[in-house]
């Protein structure tokens, strides 16, 4: 049995080591805000004022075995968006407003049922949870075409769309939301999808900000310290480009 690419293995183990150490050392470091966290809860209030449900669409976010690095980021959206869904459900339960979800991932559909039910229960109004508001669709096309229909039928007043949508199809739903004048909170896994969110969304978070949402929803200092630790890895990579680049250029390496 041979080890393949030892250098990647070292970076792999090193990254975890840095973040684990950061979880102790960097507690209390101040972090910048992520706009979509507060805005998502605000979306529930906006929908309440308009008297419409909130659309919560996460697209393909969920369990996958794509076995590539983009599959990894998709998986990492699961805990973040589920925590957000729970937080929104608490507010929705309190304000008696429906959250209509849209997902094309079976495991995520089942998990969102669990998290949403818990959120409504935490609001003190478990009876306001309706499992039929969790919409699973067999593929991305069914998801998008049905979302558009739901937006028009319910005249949706606010939407939170944080997840993944095939081939920037998220913008088809955004365009439908524009016709109802809905508030749009968005963040996408893929950078090209995120460009569409940048074009249309009222509140936008992108890349790792979306993965970090769970850490922002808790008062625990440890997750935030780990987020601060990410900056050390980014700094290291920047250093590799600048210092390593100079050394390569000068022929030292």
């Amino acid at each position, binding site marked *: 049995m041979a080890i393949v690419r030892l250098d990647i293995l070292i970076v792999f183990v090193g990254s975890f080591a840095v973040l684990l150490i950061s979880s102790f050392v960097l507690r209390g470091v101040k972090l910048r805000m992520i706009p979509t966290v507060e805005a998502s809860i605000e979306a529930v209030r906006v929908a309440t004022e308009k008297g419409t449900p909130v659309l919560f669409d996460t697209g393909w976010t969920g369990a996958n075995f*794509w*076995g590539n*690095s983009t599959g990894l980021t998709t998986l990492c959206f699961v805990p973040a968006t589920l925590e957000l869904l729970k937080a929104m459900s608490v507010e929705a339960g309190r304000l008696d407003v429906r959250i209509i979800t849209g997902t094309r991932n079976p495991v995520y559909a089942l998990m969102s049922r669990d998290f949403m039910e818990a959120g409504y229960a935490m609001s003190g109004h478990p009876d306001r949870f309706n499992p039929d508001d969790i919409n699973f669709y067999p593929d991305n096309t069914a998801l998008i075409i049905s979302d558009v229909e739901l937006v028009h039928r319910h005249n949706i007043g606010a939407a939170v769309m944080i997840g993944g949508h095939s081939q920037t199809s998220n913008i088809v739903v955004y365009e439908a939301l524009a016709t109802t004048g809905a508030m749009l909170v968005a963040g996408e896994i893929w950078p090209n999808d995120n460009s569409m969110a940048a074009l249309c969304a009222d509140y936008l978070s992108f890349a790792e900000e979306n993965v970090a949402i769970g850490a922002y929803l808790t008062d625990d200092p440890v997750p935030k310290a780990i987020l601060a630790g990410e900056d050390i890895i980014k700094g290291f990579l920047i250093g590799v480009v600048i210092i390593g680049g100079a050394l390569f250029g000068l022929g030292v390496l």
Partner: protein
Amino acid sequence: MSSLNLSDKRWIYILIFAIITVSSIAPIAFPLPIMQWSKDFYATIDEGVVVDFADPPREFEGVGEGTRVMILCSGEVDKLWGDMSEAVTVVWKDLKARGANILLWTSSPSNEATLNKYLLPLMYGPRPQDHPDYGVKFVNLGYVAGGNGLLEQWKDSVMAITPNDAYGNNLADLPMMETFDELKTECDLMIGLDARGLETIYVVRFNTPLLEMGGTDSASYLALSYTAGYFKGMLMGQRGGAEYELLSGIPGKSFAYLQNALTIGIVMIVLMVVMNVRWYLTKESQVSEEVS
């Protein structure tokens, strides 16, 4: 619904459909600059490339008689076919003309259905399995589930994991597969159709030369892989098809799409400028009204 007036955005939709219809009826040819990644794509097929992520480097000498080319239809080709059709067709024709041995895999039923409906009948007739090339110059694995995890396993042996092709033939009985089994060493070139993740499995570990084809905008999310050198060339969209037609001299139908793109491009630039000028003039007149 409000009445249909000039500021109604539905005019935009009507305008775009009108442009597409006219472009489809009467296409004309245009001067076309060739993107660097398309030149790289053709150069890799024509002249070859060196891949040196791992030691020792691998030297690929271009596609010739018997070159083992695996085509991995593992992205969202079902959604993009209308933007990839001509590029895939012309490249496939070129590979056939050069005598390549082509192994095809599709990662989802809908991708398989798309190729079965639109590509394979064009290349090998209504029943590809009955074509004389089948088993000798072309093998279709069809849809095999497992995504890139499957590719991870195929690196050691295709036949050990997947004993049959798309038509139920035993792979071991097909002559082409005798030397096309252990992908990490026996695949000379991979061409991804909107495929992702191949770089981490094959390129960085086994120096497999990798080319990529996608829709016009696939370049936006695959740019990393080209800029970082994993992809040795890319061919994007119907425009990529037109570029390859020019480079290879193989005739095709890609240029029909360029007239549409040109008209849309001009209209969009004009509209953006006009709307901005209108906005600026409205703003100015509002300011002067306030001053007076």
